[in-house]
């Protein structure tokens, strides 16, 4: 099936074309939903068979290229449209199509009755098409095609309800913000690509990475390439300083938040860093920057998440925070741990978002968690699955989040140092706290809504079944990556599976492993204990003594307001970047450059011609004999000149 891997890309494209072109004629929601879901589901099956076939191959033959056609061929530069089927791309494509399929099915129920139903499924399929190009591409250009494609779909889907209000503006403004911020990142990525071509004379992954591992290239070149690529990653994966778009992206429908802004697209940056691991590994300074940015993002977003009241906002900041973890892992050289966390995070965060969608659906579009409460008895399935996901993200042993998060924490301790680990654990504690705050306020305690007017109800099976499947995955998903310390001689299966992809990078990095298993277990116990205490505290505060939360927020009013207003980052960017650009465009580019210089030159020439001709035209007297005299004098002069020159 490896040679048919292009089907995973083509089928969603087909679904997009059918729903996009004929969707408005089809009318039947079921048909549209089934077309949209089945194309992704079939893509998942193709990926699955390709995975089985790849596992059957010996390790050294597991990286295969499927060439489709020659895309660009200009003066020595040949870009082939080809897909790379290896351990990493298969893992990513299974996550994308698998979680994507479940979210498509969920959307059949969630989007029921929406007037843009067909449009929604068309966009979702287009997104899967772009995302598959991103993860399967065999060179930076195909990756970039997907990279831009997912950005476009993100824009289209954030602004899907273009006629609705969102916070202070409209959803279109949120979509525009996401697009513009992403473009800033993409610019960095593009520069990185140019520099790669300039340095390695190729954009093909295999060629570039082979040359990067063997050629004597100065570290500064690697550093520049890596930093440009990382700027791209910060845009797509919502890291400091370009994370501001992701919370606003919650303006889109909830399945979109689950699919694009939690499970798949935002992990594209992690994937790209992981794919280019050899380049990053060759630039230790940039690795440190990646780790620090990841760590800071994780910490900052978690602190903001502590006080937010919109259910999707909490999850959005949680996503930013978890993405920070992934970059922390990549930055300390634990690339496989970062991809492992991409996978487990895709399961439990998609589940959290879909659960939130189910709650919002049942609560008639209410998103404020302070107005929920006691929903446990109304929505038992949603509650049970949401609880599992919350436990998973909090890092409770036995669930998927524990394995991946703990691996990251361990590597950050082993390769980064105690401080990295400490901040990581603090973030994990806060994660546990805000997730249980969310859970308590939503499902436990008193009903804070008006139950005469609002009657919460469980969602239909088409929505709860995907929740249950994702809950199962959130539980068992971690067992493919059991750390070496528990699994004994087999080692970490997931790590071993991805190991060949990172082998060149690991050769260059060459640290790891001077720490004992005892230390690993000790750190694990400490982090779990801290997470558990945070959970107990959250449960205590938000189910029994809510006045504690109020008291704390009043006592530290300054900090509370700072967090509630998201560190005023949006306001700072508004004042420091957006306003200067707008004012500068208006005052300098428009009023001065355009109106005065460009228009001035054009109008000036016209005025000059007008004025001078108004003088000269007086010669046209209309008296024929005047013309005759002039003509005669002219002829006489010409004749004179001819005679004199003889």
């Amino acid at each position: 099936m490896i040679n048919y891997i292009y089907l995973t890309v083509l089928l969603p494209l087909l679904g997009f074309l059918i729903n996009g072109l004929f969707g408005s004629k089809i009318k039947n929601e079921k048909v549209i939903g089934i077309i949209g879901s089945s194309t992704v589901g079939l893509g998942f099956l193709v990926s699955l068979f390709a995975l089985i076939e790849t596992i059957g191959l010996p390790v050294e033959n597991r990286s295969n290229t499927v060439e489709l056609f020659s895309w660009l061929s200009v003066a020595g530069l040949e870009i082939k449209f080809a897909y790379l089927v290896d351990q990493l791309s298969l893992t990513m494509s299974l996550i994308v199509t698998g979680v994507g399929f479940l979210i498509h099915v969920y959307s059949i129920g969630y989007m029921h009755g929406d007037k843009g139903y067909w449009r929604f499924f068309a966009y979702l399929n287009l997104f899967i098409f772009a995302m598959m190009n991103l993860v399967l591409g065999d060179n930076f250009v195909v990756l970039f095609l997907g990279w831009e494609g997912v950005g476009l779909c993100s824009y289209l889907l954030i602004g899907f309800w273009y006629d609705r209000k969102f916070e202070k503006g409209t959803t279109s403004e949120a979509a525009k913000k996401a697009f513009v911020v992403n473009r800033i990142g993409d610019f960095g990525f593009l520069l990185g690509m140019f520099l790669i071509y300039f340095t390695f004379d190729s954009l093909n992954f295999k060629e570039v990475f082979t040359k990067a591992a063997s050629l004597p290239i100065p570290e500064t070149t690697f550093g520049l390439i890596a930093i440009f690529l990382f700027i791209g990653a910060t845009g797509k994966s919502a890291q400091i300083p370009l994370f501001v778009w992701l919370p606003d992206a919650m303006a889109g429908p909830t399945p979109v938040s689950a699919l694009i802004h939690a499970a798949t697209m935002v992990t594209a940056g992690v994937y790209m860093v992981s794919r280019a691991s050899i380049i990053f590994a060759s630039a230790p300074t940039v690795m440190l920057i990646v780790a620090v940015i990841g760590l800071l993002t994780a910490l900052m977003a978690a602190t903001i998440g502590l006080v937010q009241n919109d259910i999707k906002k909490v999850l959005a900041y949680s996503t930013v925070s978890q993405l920070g973890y992934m970059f922390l892992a990549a930055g300390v050289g634990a690339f496989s741990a970062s991809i492992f966390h991409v996978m487990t995070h895709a399961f439990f965060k998609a589940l959290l978002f879909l659960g939130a969608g189910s709650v919002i659906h049942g609560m008639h579009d209410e998103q404020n968690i302070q107005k929920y409460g006691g929903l446990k008895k109304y929505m038992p399935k949603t509650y049970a699955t949401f609880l599992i996901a919350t436990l998973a993200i909090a890092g409770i042993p036995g669930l998927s989040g524990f394995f991946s998060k703990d691996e990251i924490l361990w590597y950050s301790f082993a390769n980064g140092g105690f401080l990295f680990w400490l901040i990581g654990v603090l973030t994990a504690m806060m994660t546990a706290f805000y997730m249980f705050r969310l859970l308590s306020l939503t499902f436990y305690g008193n009903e804070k809504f008006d139950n005469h007017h609002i009657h919460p109800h469980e969602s239909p099976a088409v929505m709860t079944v995907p929740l249950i499947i994702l809950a199962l995955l959130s539980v068992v998903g971690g067992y493919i990556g059991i750390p070496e310390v528990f699994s004994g001689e087999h080692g970490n299966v997931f790590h071993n599976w991805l190991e060949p992809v990172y082998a060149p990078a690991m050769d260059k990095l060459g640290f790891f492993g001077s720490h004992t298993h005892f230390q690993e277990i000790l750190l694990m116990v400490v982090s779990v204990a801290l997470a558990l205490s945070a959970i107990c505290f959250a449960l205590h505060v938000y189910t029994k003594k809510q006045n504690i939360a109020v008291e704390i927020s009043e006592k530290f009013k300054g900090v509370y307001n700072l967090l509630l207003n998201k560190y005023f980052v949006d306001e700072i960017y508004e004042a420091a970047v957006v306003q200067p650009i707008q004012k500068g465009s208006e005052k300098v580019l428009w009023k001065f450059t355009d109106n005065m210089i460009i228009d001035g030159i054009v109008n000036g020439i016209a005025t000059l011609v007008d004025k001078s001709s108004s003088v000269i035209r007086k010669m046209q007297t209309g008296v024929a004999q005047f013309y005759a005299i002039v003509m005669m004098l002219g002829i006489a002069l010409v004749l004179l000149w001819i005679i004199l020159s003889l």
Partner: protein
Amino acid sequence: MSSIPMEYYLILSAFMFAVGVTGVLIRRNAIVVFMCIELMLNAANLTLVTFSSYTGNPVGQIFVFFVMTVAAAEAAVGLAIIIAIFRNKLTVNIDEINIFKW
């Protein structure tokens, strides 16, 4: 004929041309201006014929026929224009016909 020197013809021709030019420049009646143009044409014709005759080259005389043909056509058109203008403005004084100006 050969007893008369060529210069006589040329001087006559130049004189006729000068009369024509002067007439075009100073007379106000369109008909007279028009006649003066004819006079200039014929002065030129006379020059052509003179040179043709004295050099024994018939091309000049053939050329004169063409000039006369064109002049006839031109006279027809010119007179028609003058009549049309007269019908509109009730005058053929070219000082008063000055609508083609700024």
